């Protein structure tokens, strides 16, 4: 069949479409965003009515996907690794309910933290929740494993987690498509109590999940996604998980690899295969593009068995994504070096775009905050986090989605008055509304600045779930109407905006300032599209 040039993310999306999903649920997050975007733009998805609009956050996405699975249809839910923390309650309990229609959860990890706050490894979530995990090593496997994950999910009635990392998510290669499978018809679970996790039922369901563990492991031994390659040099055995296998192979382009190798792409860990390898070699090197999951288990608390090398003994640096050079060093191969980078090369950190509304909002806020001691502005995650960097240096925190408002509450409770929260419209609908409700209920003396640019900017301008309703939401949550102020962040409005911010900082209660101006990027795109349509109309005439 047809070969397509796809990003790892796109291969997953195409794999899900071809597996016969009826819906994808997601909140944008680098490096997972392109999966849902691909489905949104796909002709096949449109023709087959695959639902694909953005969810308010990862938890709502996960729950909607469970709902679709309950109704018997196949659903995909996508998020970045830290999004899985947001969805964790629903995710872990979905292992207990089990799946009816195929339920596949995609978590995209970001080792080296290219665009994230941490480099947590989602495979641990799979182990924690006791469900199978797939970890592709290349774009073709990303496609094949996504299809297989749905098969596995329906075969064993369990959600399946797919774990990728940034490098595969955002790297392109040729992918061979297979035939497109049909969507499921509506079919409720045969046991209508399966999804009611009351303790008495949950205990039963948990036993069922525990009872499936042997099946999961047997499948990992036989599916073909874990492979043991024998070798003649038994002084070392190598376990290479996911992408790490490519870096291993890269180092043996021009020479033969004589060590036995276990290529791992499916979990639970295939214990029999690991044992065969372990028994046949003198020592083991574990290559994992993330935390040392297999390495730690193999090594054990007391580390008294055969020598196990990897991230924990320093053979590979403990943090950061793998690359061919790190793997070469761990294999004690000669590591090639290039020219030295001259000292004149300066860092070029990302920054807010020219003409960005956030710059005008923070310029006014910075001036207003001069009236108070430093260190009072709490923020979170979005383009506006870049205001932490020079020249603005406006914010003092970025912990997780929505933490701006709630951290401001806690700091105000501790006596830091006024405390300020700076949050974007998409982040506000993701996880800010409940925090604002807390503030209203306790009459917390905080000023919340909602930077409303009508989009999810940092990930490339996806729809924000606010859809222009920020003011109404704040009213609905119970913020006093005269304490909801709307400003237009433009340089020429600086003085009046400054006055509004100063007034609300002085107010001893919850204030919300909505700084409302469209993202300069989405505006530009909209104008271009308009011009294009105009041209087309002209040509038709």
């Amino acid at each position, binding site marked *: 069949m047809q070969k397509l040039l796809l990003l790892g993310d796109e291969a997953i999306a195409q794999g899900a479409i071809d597996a016969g999903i009826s819906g994808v649920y997601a909140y944008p997050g680098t490096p997972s965003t392109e999966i849902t975007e691909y489905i949104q733009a796909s002709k096949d998805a449109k023709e087959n009515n695959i639902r694909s609009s953005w969810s308010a956050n990862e938890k709502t996405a996960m729950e909607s996907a469970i709902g679709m699975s309950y109704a018997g249809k196949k659903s995909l839910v996508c998020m970045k690794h830290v999004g899985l923390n947001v969805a964790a309650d629903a995710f872990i309990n979905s292992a207990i309910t089990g799946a009816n229609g195929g339920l596949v959860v995609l978590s995209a990890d970001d080792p080296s933290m290219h665009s994230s706050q941490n480099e947590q490894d989602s495979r641990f979530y799979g182990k924690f929740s006791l469900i199978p995990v797939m970890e592709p090593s290349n774009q073709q496997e990303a496609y094949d494993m996504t299809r297989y994950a749905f098969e596995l999910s329906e075969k064993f009635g369990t959600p399946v987690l797919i774990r990728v990392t940034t490098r595969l998510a955002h*790297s392109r290669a040729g992918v061979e498509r297979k035939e497109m499978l049909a969507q499921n018809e509506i079919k409720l679970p045969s046991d209508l109590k399966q999804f009611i996790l009351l303790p008495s039922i949950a205990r039963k369901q948990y036993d069922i999940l525990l009872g499936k563990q042997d099946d999961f492991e047997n499948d990992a031994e036989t599916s073909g996604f874990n492979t043991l390659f024998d070798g003649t040099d038994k002084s070392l055995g190598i376990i290479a998980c996911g992408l790490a296998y490519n870096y291993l192979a890269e*180092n043996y382009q021009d020479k033969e690899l004589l060590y036995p190798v276990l290529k791992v792409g499916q979990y639970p860990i295939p214990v029999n295969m690991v044992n065969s390898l372990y028994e046949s070699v003198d020592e083991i090197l574990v290559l994992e593009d993330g935390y040392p999951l297999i390495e730690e288990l193999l090594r054990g608390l007391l580390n008294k068995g055969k020598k196990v090398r990897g991230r924990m003994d320093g053979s590979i640096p403990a943090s950061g994504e793998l690359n061919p050079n790190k793997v070469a060093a761990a294999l004690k191969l000669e590591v*090639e070096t*290039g020219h030295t980078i001259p000292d004149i090369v300066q860092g070029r950190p990302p920054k807010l775009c020219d003409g960005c509304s956030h710059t005008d909002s923070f310029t006014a806020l910075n001036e207003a905050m001069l009236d108070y001691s430093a260190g009072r502005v709490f923020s979170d995650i979005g383009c506006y986090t870049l205001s932490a960097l020079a020249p603005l240096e406006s914010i003092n925190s970025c912990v997780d989605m929505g933490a701006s408002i709630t951290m401001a509450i806690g700091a105000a409770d501790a006596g830091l008055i006024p405390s300020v929260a700076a949050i974007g419209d998409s982040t506000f609908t993701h996880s800010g509304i409940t925090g604002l409700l807390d503030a209203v209920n306790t009459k917390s003396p905080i000023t919340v600045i909602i930077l409303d640019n009508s989009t999810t900017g940092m990930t490339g301008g996806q729809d924000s779930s606010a859809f222009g309703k920020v003011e109404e939401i704040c009213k609905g949550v119970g913020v006093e109407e005269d304490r909801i102020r709307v400003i237009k962040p433009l340089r020429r409005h600086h003085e009046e905006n400054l006055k509004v911010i100063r007034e609300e900082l002085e107010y001893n209660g919850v204030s919300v300032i909505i700084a409302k101006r469209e993202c300069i990027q989405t505006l530009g795109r909209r104008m271009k599209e308009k011009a294009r349509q105009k041209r087309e109309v002209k040509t038709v005439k």
Partner: protein
Amino acid sequence: MKKDIILAGVGGQGILTIATVIGTAALLEGLQLKQAEVHGMSQRGGDVQSNLRISSGDISSDLIPEGKADLIISVEPMESLRYINMLDKNNGWLVTSMNPFVNIPNYPPVEDVLKAIWEVPRNVTIDAEKVAKEQGSIKAANIVALGAASPYLGIKYESLEHAIKKIFASKGEDIINLNLKALSAGKNYAVKKT
């Protein structure tokens, strides 16, 4: 045939377009490819790079090993040096635009940057903006840089032309011709200079 290429620049300068042209041309020649891109946070005016690997055989890693790149193509001079450790010391070519993109306060004196580039054996520097302007639009500076790198790509020049026609097909004849002229001007400059 195997070429490992680093593409470098600043977010918004069009390095992904260069990658798409080379990638499309490589596919037209029946070659395999892997191309690692940068998305997300670093796009906002920060440094961006892409690892592009082309081969007649299988390609393992999405990342090029250090010291193994055959070619660096950069649309910004300081950015060309950021990845100089990736270049093969004995055979690699460095092709870069000479036009600095200054969006940081501590950008070094451009003479110093160029001096460091000229110290790299096998380098081509080109005033891509000037050349692009002469062809009709400064926007084609990225394709000028690609043209200057075309003699070292291991891909037929006609395949690059074919790729440009394909990629810009929806944008109309004028844009296609502009980019074809930019490609040609970049190539002629490099051939004359080396």
